[in-house]
């Protein structure tokens, strides 16, 4: 999925339009936001570092989105890709790889076909939930006339066992003392705060946005994958340890896709402090669903890297 949490298509930070019209804020929220008291989620050291940097905290801003995942059974709109004979990718440019059984016809139960399939509809649904929560946080920040949001925390969690997922963003909206508003009025954002943000700025990297993407790959195991993942040596399979090519390739592909999706949001900027989380759910008979989430800080270099003196090693006596 190429749409980032900032709503950009990778060309520029185009999230500005919806963030300009915070018309759907609850009345209580508007009242709270009009208060002259500032709030922030910063620790005291972060708060002090923020003031030193010329950033004034204005409000603790948040965004939520609760998404229900659609039914994946027969008749579901999400059913695409379930037929083993449709073959091919689910949308132009998406990942798909097929495997053929080397045994010929054996029985109806024999898995003569296998496929690794990117699930763009899962990625799009995740991006929708994540992006909506992010936009709502930015919308609150924009209401305050904030220039940026620092110390962003995002959380994706399940709501009970209902197949429902909550996306939650939280951060401290700030203004840059004497600084111009960002292009389009869309606040910049970063997971960093305090000294880490200061060091990033000193090094010449200005935060642009937090970026994230989910990549999802479904493994439809063919017979050899099924045998290997279950330790079986049926039908002329190898007698010793053997690379499970289909699953290994799926794992590599999901990580490459996540990086590709995030890179599409960078538009030539850099990604710092990336974290990669992979969840693999083994279904049965070698089938798996592998989800990979990649997050990080999109930063833009605004000056040449200052030469940093090699730090002097020290030994603490404490």
């Amino acid at each position: 999925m190429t749409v980032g949490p900032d709503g950009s298509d990778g060309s520029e930070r185009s999230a500005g339009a919806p963030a300009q019209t915070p018309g759907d804020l609850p009345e209580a929220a508007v009242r709270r936001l009009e208060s002259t008291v500032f709030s922030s989620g910063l620790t005291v050291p972060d708060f002090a570092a923020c003031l030193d940097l010329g950033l004034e905290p204005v409000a603790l801003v948040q965004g939520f989105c609760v998404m229900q995942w659609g039914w994946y059974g027969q008749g579901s709109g999400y059913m695409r890709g379930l037929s083993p004979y449709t073959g091919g990718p689910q949308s132009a440019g998406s990942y798909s790889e097929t495997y053929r059984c080397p045994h010929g016809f054996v029985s109806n139960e024999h898995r003569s076909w296998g496929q690794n399939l990117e699930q763009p509809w899962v990625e799009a649904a995740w991006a929708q939930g994540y992006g909506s929560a992010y936009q709502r946080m930015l919308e609150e920040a924009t209401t305050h006339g904030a220039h940026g949001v620092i110390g962003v925390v995002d959380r994706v969690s399940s709501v009970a066992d209902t197949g429902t997922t909550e996306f939650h963003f939280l951060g401290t909206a700030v203004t840059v003392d004497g600084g111009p508003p960002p292009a389009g009025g869309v606040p910049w954002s970063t997971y960093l705060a305090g000294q880490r943000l200061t060091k990033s700025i000193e090094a010449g990297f200005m935060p642009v946005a937090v970026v994230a993407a989910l990549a999802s790959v479904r493994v439809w195991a063919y017979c050899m994958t099924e045998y290997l993942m279950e330790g079986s040596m049926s039908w002329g399979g190898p007698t010793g340890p053997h690379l499970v090519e289909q699953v290994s390739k799926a794992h590599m592909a999901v990580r490459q896709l996540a990086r590709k999706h995030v890179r599409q949001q960078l538009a030539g900027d850099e990604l710092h402090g990336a974290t990669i989380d992979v969840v693999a759910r083994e279904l049965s008979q070698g089938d798996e669903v592998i989800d990979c989430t990649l997050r990080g800080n999109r930063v833009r270099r605004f000056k040449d890297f200052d030469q940093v003196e090699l730090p002097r090693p020290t030994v603490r006596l404490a």
Partner: protein
Amino acid sequence: MSTGFSPGTAPPADVRAEMLLGAQSLATPAPPSQARGITSDLSVDEALLLHAAGWEPLDLVCGVAVVSVPVGVWNWGRGAISLASDAHDQAVDQAAAQLRGECSKVHGHGVVGVRVEVSVRTHHVDVELVGTAVRPMEGQDPRGADAAQAMPFTSDLSARDFTLLQRAGWMPVGLAFGASFVYAPRRTAGTAMKQTRQNVELTNYTEAMYSARESAMEKMQRSALHAGGQGVVEVKVTEGPMSFARHAVGFTAWGTAVRLVAESHQFVQPQVVLPLDDAVVTFEAESLRSGGQGRGRKR
């Protein structure tokens, strides 16, 4: 809105000026760029340190391999479970090869800060390696650019440790792995009965553990030699009975194989400091993250 705060001491003017510069850079839309942006999982500190040492990050790179373990391997037997060890070795080799392949693709000379995840399951061994490809900024590599790109080093050392190692005249050459799985021999029925009411060492398990350890450490050292290393630093070990087969014990060891590239070891001569700060408040930018949700680097 104003915070009403006016700090008594003036903040460093240059930091504020740089913040303003940064804000101004975002005040106008960036021109369209086809540049392939750099991605890295390094922290700001690590990126700065690498830069100070003359290296730059290039790309986040991965290597993953899943290798099957044939059925019956974990059934009770005697001695080493060589098929499981072989599966582990194969998975590690394959994942490392993929990691180096991705590094070479982006013209990296090596991978630092590799996060190693090894999962030994009943029927397969999964290995995941994730790190940041790096290269010297001036293209200077003691091994030569072509050789370095042809065989990039891999290392689970943090950028800080990598910098310090390099300063001492050493370079990482690769990850060294060793694993061994051994059956704990059965006690005879008589011995088991006799020991039922005793506080006694189960020597079969102790011996199995020693046996697994010797074999794994030897493999790791052999792996380091094969990579051209003279030693292994930051060795991590995992050991204990397998969760799915309590009669088998496993021992895995891995670390970064290193080689002296200077004529001799360079003494770092650290400065001794006595910190006077109160260690009560520690800086944690991600302190808002709830338990288990944190995505900070854990090193």
